């Protein structure tokens, strides 16, 4: 508790409060804008944080991540357009409630449920992280290698496409991570004699190319359609649900919070999976499943809570083990590493002010989001009226600034453009790019663990089955591979 209070002392400085506010505000705006997801925004803003103090940088980037889950609700409820993936489920019942004249109640339930789930999620991080970090200290290189293998396999298993495609993306990401100097003996690898590749493909041009610039190309293919926006309520009272709506939303919010947090802990989990699972669970538990899709309060309250709790839960493996649960937390891990901080079990001992500062900022950020999201929704909705013609040059200019400022090297902009086209081609044909970033970030840590293990065992691969922990992780990885290739999944994918 003392450490958490220390974290609040860090966060309550003027600078950190300001960056927390900027983060959640940007997150909300990004969540509202369809197309510009949190991954793109964090990738674009990552280089701008280079000159910031590390805690402030992580507080701002984290604010974007959990702010998005709030913002995405607005367009889902008022326009039936999910601002980002974890709000897809909200469209089903949230929009139907809005059509019945209950837009305010829908946004209110979503906002309050999100606040509750986000806050409980942060409490979970507070109490779960220290014991988990103590456990992870006992990990050797073999345990780490197998944990990462299990994590990568789980992410590919949970990917929307077929398993071989997802595995191919993971292998491609790992391969990209090997370009540049060998981390152990500095031998240049896969550089083709090109000077610009001497330090490898940097995270910033890769992420901005795959997500920011490829998104611009996707925008070019969209046809301009008239968007129908249902009127947003005005005044705080307009967001209050009726007594019946409040009663019906209590249990789904509780269930969504617990489920979301647990799913967020899993590699490959996070907000998107949490919201879909919560919707399925609420429908299963409901006495009136026929109301789902027609404005059921439970179908809105559960998933909205679950996606916020899932977002919080994903911070636990990131902060305690240094293992990102999804592509966004992989980018956050990259941000930590760029700032010279290695998340993992030792962060609590060596840099507790960063860990607890980020955790404390989440408490404050959730309060900021609640205040921002209820009275200012009408204002945010106006952002949607920016035409593509003016949005695109702005995004391109910010991408240029982001990539160039990360290294001062024009070659990085060229690399980002190349990955923009590559990302467009792969996304257009159903390849999941999130896995590429995740594998790219994990690659060097995975490689180091594998090589250290094999060096210790003099090349004997049985070292990976030597302890119960590493054998357990290896079994999980193999089981997921088998389950992913099982005929039932193949049939489902088809």
């Amino acid at each position: 508790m003392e450490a958490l209070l220390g974290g609040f002392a860090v966060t309550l400085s003027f600078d950190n409060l300001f960056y927390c506010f900027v983060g959640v505000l940007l997150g909300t705006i990004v969540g509202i804008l369809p197309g510009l997801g949190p991954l793109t925004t964090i990738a674009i803003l990552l280089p701008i944080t280079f000159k910031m103090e590390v805690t402030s940088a992580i507080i701002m980037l984290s604010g974007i991540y959990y702010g998005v889950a709030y913002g995405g609700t607005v367009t889902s409820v008022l326009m039936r357009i999910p601002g980002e993936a974890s709000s897809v489920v909200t469209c089903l019942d949230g929009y139907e409630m809005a059509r019945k004249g209950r837009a305010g109640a829908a946004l209110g339930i979503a906002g309050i449920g999100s606040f509750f789930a986000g806050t409980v999620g942060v409490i979970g991080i507070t109490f779960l992280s220290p014991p988990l970090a103590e456990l992870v200290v006992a990990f050797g290189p073999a345990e780490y290698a197998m944990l990462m293998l299990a994590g990568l396999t789980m992410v590919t298993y949970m990917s929307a496409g077929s398993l071989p495609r997802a595995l191919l993306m993971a292998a491609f990401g790992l391969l990209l991570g090997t370009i540049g100097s060998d981390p152990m003996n500095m031998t240049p690898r896969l550089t083709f004699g090109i000077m610009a590749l001497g330090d490898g493909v940097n995270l910033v041009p890769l992420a901005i190319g795959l997500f920011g610039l490829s998104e611009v190309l996707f925008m070019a293919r969209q046809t301009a359609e008239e968007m129908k926006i249902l009127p947003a309520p005005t005044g705080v009272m307009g967001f209050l649900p009726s007594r019946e709506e409040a009663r019906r939303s209590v249990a789904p919010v509780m269930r969504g919070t617990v489920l979301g947090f647990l799913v967020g802990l899993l590699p490959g989990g996070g907000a998107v999976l949490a919201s879909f699972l919560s919707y399925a669970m609420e429908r299963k538990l409901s006495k009136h499943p026929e109301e789902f899709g027609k404005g059921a309060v439970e179908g809105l309250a559960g998933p909205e809570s679950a996606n916020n709790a899932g977002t919080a839960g994903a911070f636990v493996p990131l902060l305690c083990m240094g293992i990102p649960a999804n592509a966004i937390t992989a980018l956050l891990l990259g941000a930590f590493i760029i700032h010279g901080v290695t998340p993992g079990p030792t962060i609590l001992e060596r840099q507790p002010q960063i860990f607890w500062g980020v955790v404390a900022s989440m408490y404050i950020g959730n309060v900021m989001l609640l205040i921002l999201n209820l009275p200012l929704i009408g204002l945010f909705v106006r952002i949607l009226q920016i035409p593509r013609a003016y949005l695109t040059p702005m995004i391109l200019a910010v991408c240029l600034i982001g990539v160039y400022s990360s290294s001062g090297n024009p070659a990085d902009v060229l690399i980002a453009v190349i990955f923009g086209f590559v990302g467009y081609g792969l996304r257009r044909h159903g390849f999941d790019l999130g896995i590429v970033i995740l594998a790219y970030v994990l690659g060097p840590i995975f490689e180091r663990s594998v090589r250290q293990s094999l060096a210790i065992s003099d090349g004997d691969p049985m070292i990976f089955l030597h302890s119960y922990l590493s054998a357990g992780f290896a079994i999980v990885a193999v089981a997921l591979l088998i389950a992913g290739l099982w005929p039932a999944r193949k049939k489902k994918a088809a």
Partner: protein
Amino acid sequence: MSRPTGMRSTGTRLATFGLLAAALVGLWQSLRLESWGFDGPGAGFFPQLVAGVCVVLALVVLVSPGRAGATEDGATEESNGTPETRRTFALYALALVVLAAGTAYAGFVVTAVAISVIVVRFAERRSWAAALTYGVACAAIGLVCFGWLLRVDLPEGPIERAFYSLVR
């Protein structure tokens, strides 16, 4: 968001062939590195392993059965959109190329204005005045806010150098 599940479409095949080619080049390069040294796995060990797995997986994806489906942007993979969509897409792609070339040779301001003209005037068919005004506004905001006030590194050309000599 529907995704293609199979391999019959040309675009998907091409994307997978591209990945296969990249993996083969990676494998070829990594085979020139030492895979095992006196102190354990060498610099080539991991790239060889990963590139090999990548090649195998790309081949599996290429030969696995399936069907063409809707892509992420909602269009079927076979359709390339209307001529107008294709034209807009080509101009947006040109804007990306200008982004890379402009950064290397022209500086931030010229690149930002050029991108704005390509997108606003040509791709979106707005007026010259709108394109130029918006481009200059984007460039000015970038230069003043990021380049001057936040001291972020921007690609430098004659305009940036002249501006910095005035304000710094």
